[in-house]
């Protein structure tokens, strides 16, 4: 830009300056994120040993039956089932997936009208304030927020004492330790994650397109369906992925709201990695969870592409 002559060499070029500038951050992410994730992948195809993993390739941590090496170097006679063969892991995986899909659907559907309201019905000067209001609860202690839901829904909690105080119900409602309670808690926790991307997509829509739609005889509702909604789908997709992917690995909510009675896949990963000291199996479950998340995301993106290309 300021250079009088274009130098074709690498040094001093855009690429070199950019790489040099980004390298500390990139190196940090490679060493502390990419390398550990790669290690997890490698561990998942190794043999479990005492407090370690042994570099002996096998796939039994995924399918079939595995044997750990004991402290004295012999193989344990008692086997364990690989991640996809173990019915308990399969149950937890299915439950995590089910809860994540419910949470994602609830969060995004509840969030869309809010994003729409802030984008279309709020004066431009007030938008930042509304978004700030929406994000505040998100930045307060996650553990405390999750626990507060427990306080509200427990047998002697806020909702039950209000309902009984007003003589609406005589017996306390059993809401704790249920999947519904976990879904509400998680939908609450991830709400701003869903609102912000949808808001950004709605903001980008050229308002004259909507007028054009209505000038051409569409009603407000059909304009929304045929113009606003398809144009905001990029935001909806971002919202879906940004809620769905972290939710499947949630660890705190199953413990605090589920009371440990409804464990999810994150709790299983923790158990295998730490309490059971089976890092090979723990890694295989972690990799499997990521594969499932990735697969569902890809299917979702493909379906969505078909919807957007669908009949005009």
């Amino acid at each position: 830009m300021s250079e009088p002559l274009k130098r074709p060499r690498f040094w001093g070029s855009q690429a070199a300056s950019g790489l040099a500038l980004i390298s500390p951050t990139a190196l940090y992410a490679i060493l502390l994120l990419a390398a550990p994730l790669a290690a997890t992948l490698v561990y998942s195809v190794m043999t479990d040993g005492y407090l370690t993993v042994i570099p002996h390739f096998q796939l039994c941590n995924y399918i079939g039956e595995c044997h750990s090496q004991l402290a004295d170097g012999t193989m344990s006679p008692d086997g364990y089932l690989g991640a996809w063969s173990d019915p308990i892991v399969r149950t937890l995986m299915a439950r995590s997936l089910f809860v994540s899909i419910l949470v994602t659907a609830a969060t995004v559907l509840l969030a869309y009208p809010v994003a729409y309201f802030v984008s279309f019905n709020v004066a431009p000067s007030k938008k930042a304030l509304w978004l700030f209001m929406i994000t505040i609860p998100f930045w307060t202690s996650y553990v405390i927020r999750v626990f507060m839901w427990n306080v509200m829904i427990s047998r002697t909690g806020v909702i039950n004492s209000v309902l009984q105080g007003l003589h609406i119900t005589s017996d306390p409602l059993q809401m704790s330790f249920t999947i519904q309670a976990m879904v509400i808690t998680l939908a609450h926790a991830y709400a701003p994650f869903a609102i912000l991307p949808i808001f950004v997509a709605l903001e980008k829509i050229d308002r004259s397109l909507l007028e054009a739609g209505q000038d051409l005889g569409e009603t407000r509702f059909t304009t929304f369906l045929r113009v606003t909604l398809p144009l905001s789908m990029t935001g909806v997709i971002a919202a879906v992925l940004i809620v769905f992917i972290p939710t499947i690995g949630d660890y705190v909510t199953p413990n605090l709201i589920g009371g440990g009675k409804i464990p999810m896949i994150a709790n299983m990963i923790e158990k295998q990695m730490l309490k059971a000291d089976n890092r090979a199996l723990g890694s295989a479950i972690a990799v499997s969870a990521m594969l499932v998340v990735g697969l569902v995301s890809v299917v979702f993106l493909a379906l969505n592409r078909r919807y957007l290309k669908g009949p005009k």
Partner: protein
Amino acid sequence: MKIPVLRIYTIGYLLFLYCPILILPIFAFNDSTAVAFPLQGFTTEWFQNVFHDAVLGKALKNSLLVAASTAVISTFLGTLAARANTRYQFKAAGPLMGLIMLPMVLPEIIMAMALLVVLLSIGIPLSLFTIILGHVLVCTPFAVAILTSAFQSLDKSLEEAAYDLGEGPFSTFRLIILPLVMPGIISAMLICFTISLDEFIISNFLGSGEPLLSTFIYGQLRFPKNVPNIMALGTILVGVSITLLALAEFFRRRGLARTGAKDSGGFL
């Protein structure tokens, strides 16, 4: 007259969002160990307990140390990445930025476990330092997001003018760019500080048992008689978080006003 359905819905939704943190202070001052209605009277006993708890004092010290270190390191790393990505065009930018931003969507348990296993394998003992390593990973994407918008709203001609007037790249950065993005940097530091203060999963798994605020709270919640103390502590923490966020928002807006950009809202 038309009923403002959307407005009513949005206000209802905000109530849902705020419900837990509005109920928190009510029970922090309630004179009963049971967290339930009807309220039993006013007390500041729980707050006194909080101020006299030695373990909590240690947890607070540790948390402040971790959060401050995380804020400084993440913001530094975030500044480099955001500047590289907005100022220069290079092929590796896409994949590298993808990797740097990945912790925003990656389940934390996967990150914590992967990091834990590697640290144990290469024999690095768990400590507050390892917690900071993990927190920096989580916070950097947020710093990058805030700083990217700060750098994007910079007018490139200001920089060119400085070069034309004979300044070198470093003095231009120090004299022109840094002052203009300073509000963004402060905003990013405050956000990273807040995230680190509240973060639980990495603090729990990458720690050596040294208490942090979030792990202390999580541990106390198992004992019903300690819950009112946690309500009081939570009230203080929420108050601190909101104050820090309001400050961050103030600096973010001042930054936008300084560079003359339009306020498009939100941190992210």
